[in-house]
């Protein structure tokens, strides 16, 4: 063998050994970089060996060249692997250093909170939309005409005693103006506006002159109205049970009690199975041990009301129902004092969070 080739082979061996040593001793990225420059850099030891290939004969050159190239690839791979190893070690150290207390409170605003009554309103509206009902809204300051007269409650009618009313001074064409005592006037306004057939719900604020733990002068109702041909009580029943079950998240037993409203005939009130005890606790504070909760009034729309809505009651009939949204919210969220809903105390809705 040619002595030049011999020498190169020797040098290769030496470079390899030196590289292995340098690699092993490089415990910092800087030392590793130095090693890279020393061996594979432009003026590095391996590079100069590659340059010296020219001194070899054309027979020897391929084999040595191949060896050198293999060594360069190997070195580069090892350097890269070592680099990743060092970076990982460094990161590991840093991560240990940068350890934080994940139990510290968060920065930035925490989420707010919904009001149970509005939440109830929107949930019910969505459920009813699924059953084909559109939303209709109406004024909160109403006329006697829509609030009472159109609903079969003329001014002398004793049913007006059931609804103690806030009035405004003065009188207009539609009688005295008042704060609507129920969402029912929207029924008549909608019938006049859209005609039959009709499926609407009318959620909103209502007002009565009452103030105690179970009555607020301002409260919320959602009225439902369906007008069509040959509407049966069975459909009212199906609709109501669909609605209450969807709202409370499980099928609930319903109980219909005959009742009276001037604007429906026949009329009934709906009791639902106690959401707290399902009738199993004789001392239940929610249902008072009766097993039933009164949640709404309903019935087949009185022909006089359909007529007041500009629709022929000989052709169309229908049903209407009204639910107290505050009551539904109280039941769903286990709230016992209605007045807490309206005093605006934010901390009430953030119950359980640190002040």
């Amino acid at each position, binding site marked *: 063998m040619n002595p030049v080739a011999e020498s190169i082979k020797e040098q290769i061996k030496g470079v390899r050994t030196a590289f292995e040593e340098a690699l092993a001793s490089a415990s910092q990225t800087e030392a590793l970089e130095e090693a890279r420059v020393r061996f594979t850099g432009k003026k590095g030891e391996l590079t100069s060996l590659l340059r010296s290939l020219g001194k070899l004969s054309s027979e020897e050159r391929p084999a040595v060249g191949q060896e050198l190239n293999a060594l360069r690839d190997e070195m580069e791979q090892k350097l890269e692997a070592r680099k990743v190893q060092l970076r990982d070690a460094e990161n590991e150290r840093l991560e240990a250093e940068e350890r934080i207390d994940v139990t*510290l409170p968060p920065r930035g*605003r*925490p*989420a*707010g*909170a*919904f*009001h149970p009554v*509005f939440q109830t309103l*929107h949930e019910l*509206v969505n459920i009813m939309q699924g*059953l*084909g*009902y559109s939303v*209709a*809204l109406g004024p909160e*300051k109403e006329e006697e005409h829509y609030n009472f007269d159109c609903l079969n409650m003329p*001014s*002398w*009618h004793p*049913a*007006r*005693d*059931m609804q103690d009313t*806030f009035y405004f*001074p003065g009188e207009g064409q539609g009688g005295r103006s008042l*704060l609507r005592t129920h969402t029912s006037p929207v029924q008549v306004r909608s019938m006049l506006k859209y005609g039959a*057939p009709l*499926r609407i719900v009318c959620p909103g604020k209502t007002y009565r*002159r009452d103030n105690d733990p179970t009555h607020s002068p*301002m409260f919320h109702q959602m009225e439902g109205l369906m007008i069509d041909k040959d509407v*049966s*009580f*069975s459909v009212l*029943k*199906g*609709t109501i*049970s*669909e609605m209450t079950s969807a709202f409370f998240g499980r099928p609930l037993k*319903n109980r219909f*009690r*005959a009742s*009276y409203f*001037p604007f429906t*005939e*026949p009329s009934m009130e709906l009791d639902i199975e106690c959401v707290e005890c399902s009738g199993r606790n004789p001392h239940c504070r929610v249902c008072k041990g009766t097993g039933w909760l009164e949640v709404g009034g309903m019935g*087949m729309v*009185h022909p006089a009301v359909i007529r007041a809505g500009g629709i022929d009651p000989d052709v169309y*009939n229908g049903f209407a129902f009204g639910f107290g949204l505050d009551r539904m919210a109280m039941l769903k969220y286990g709230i016992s004092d209605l007045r807490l809903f309206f*005093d*605006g*105390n*934010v*901390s*009430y*809705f*953030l119950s359980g*969070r*640190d*002040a």
Partner: protein
Amino acid sequence: MFVSWELLKDFIELDISPEEAAERLTLSGTEVESMTRPEGKLKGVVVARIETLEKHPTDGHLFVAHLNSGGGRSHLCVTSARNMKQGDLVFYAGAGSVLPDGTELGMRDFAGVESAGMMLSAAELGLPDVDSPDGLLILPSDAPVGTEATTLYHIGDTLLDVSITPNRGDLLSVVGVARELKGLFPDSTLTLPYWLRPLEQEKAWTEDFGAISLPDKGCLCYRLGLATGAKMGPSPLTARVDLCHLGMRPLVNAVDVTNYVMLTLGQPLHAFDLNTLPAREITVRAAHEGEVMTTLDGKERTLTPQDMLITSGGEAIALAGVMGGQQTGINDDTHTVVVESACFSPVRVGHTSRRLGISSEAAFRFSRTVDPTLSRTALSASLTLMREWCGAEVDYRPLAAENEYPAPQPVTLTKKKLSTYLSWDNMDEATKIIEGFGIRHTSGNGDQRTFLPPTWRPDIAIEEDLIEEVGRFRGYNDAPSRLPGEPAHRADIGAPTRLAAFVRQVLIARGYVEVMTYSFLPEDFPSWLRLAKDDLRAHPLTLANPISRDQTAMRTTLVPGLLMSLKATLASGWRGPVRAFEQGRTFLRESIDSSAHVEIDRVAGLVFNGSDPRTPWKGQEEDFYSVKADVIALIEERGFRPVFVPGHEPFAHAGQTAEVRIALDGGESQRIGWLARLKPALEQEMDVSGPVCLFELDLAPLEEAKRPALHPVSSFPASLRDISLLVANDRGQDAVAADIAAVVREAAQAEGTGTNGEILESLRLFDVYEGKGIPEGFRSMAYSLSYRLPDRTLKDEEVEAIHGRVRESLSQRGYSIR
């Protein structure tokens, strides 16, 4: 209304328990709210005779009685009462017996005399109104010695508290409830108490009496019965107990008769002392406009022709159907009693009682319709009782006058409607059910049948009423249940409700708590907010009959509600940040002196750092700018571009108020609300260390969301340039950023670049600094500008040209570039 189970048994033979009756009544529309046993825990109290009565040996205030409670049992009993005598019968509660309130009796020493239990007064029996408050309850001489009190005089009655719906005036009586039970329990039998049998009324009046005239047609009929030689005194004990149970105070027997008949039969009656009548004639007429009368309760009432008066000799003696006058009542010396039994139009009585705010037992019943044919029966019954209870002579022919009144009209039931409504159509069974309620089947045997309601059921007027009788008898719970078919229209939640749902979603996610405050506010809220006289918001609609002064004026802005919400939150001890929002209606007059109004849906928010805002983190403080981000989020998420310009609100910080506008097409913009810090004076009045930041926006302009304009991002690189400006503070703080932005955008217009549209992709303020290195009276505002084209790479010289123009324009505008 209370219904006595004992009295019911006078009218119906029923083989069921009160509990069963209550359940059935409740499900069929007459809700029994509760059932009570008024005697409570009463046990072991019996009738006893006072055999001997002596003064206590040492204490002069006490008596010692030997009692015989039958079966050879005798007891020694001490009392401080003085109204008894030897031989009297009393209720005796011996040792081991229990009083209604649960008190257990035992042996007790009275100054050396051992008393076994006690003799009872009416109050100790739980019936304070039955007898005078001091002294023992002395029983009738036929009281059976040794018998338990709970089995005597209806003391052990069961009372049903029923809530009668306004359409069922007929149920405001024992007989009415009995008839209802007859309908609900077809196997029961209606009966009549002895005092309802017709009276011999043949004699002419011994007293002269002129005519009864009824010029007002609102008086349907009017009858007078005469009782002479009546002795005023207490009514029989059972009757007194009944009256007490039903919630009326027993008075003198002649008056008790009228109340008793009203409670049992439903006919309001009035007893006069004949000798106090101003004249021997009665006229029922409409009141004159402005006529004044003093009612029994001592109040002066100003009347209108809607009201009816009962007059005698031209003098008003009663407000017909509502309340008596002051002079003609029964007194202890009365011996000639005239009983009035009349019927009045429900419409007229309803109007009068509602307008005057009088809800007497009579008005309550008349306004719910009293059977006009009842007056005759009730008069006769009351006279029978006058004879029984007052020892009066009563067999005189009543005087009567009548107007026309509506007779019951036939109502037809069709199989088709019955089956549509109830999904059930057995006409024979339906007929049986309807007849059970006293509604006569008069004709038709097929799919169409006609019925005639009785005089006491004027609520049965249309076919649906008959269907309801069937429905409530059968109950609604076994009816089939199904969902409706496809609706004719696609359901639509509607823009306002959709927007409301959106707004709450955004704000809750941004850390706000959703609150709801009353729509009515204290009357003085406009002055609290310092609203000017010419501000529409200073002229709220006010209620004519508010509950309280604090809930009188309809809100014209949501601000006071949020401020009260802040107050309530702080008062409850919450110390952290407060972020609240409310969505709701505000009520504004169309103009300052108009009664016409508009209702505007708004959203308002309030943010406050908290009374103790410390946190472990920096940069958490809320201020105008942090709240501004929320307002922008709301507006931008609806697809609009927000525009803020310096503004003014009387309740806001003069230097920190912005008008919030949304940009419209064509360079215009529309005001939708404001964003501000609260006026420091108001913060101080509320005792909060500010800032309190608020915003209020009209919702209608945001209802129809605009489609967001989305542009593809250029795939060519952007050229970034920073620019730092020195801004003199004496330029004012107002709208400098908006001005700079306008100048920059104007100067960076793409003209001359050979491209369409803007070359300036974005302009971002990244620093505002004042202090070291910046001359006194100046601040530095540093911007990063990004220039970019959609279709090619910008050349350096192009960027330099544009940026040079921007710098030049800013300089010309007076901003020096650092």
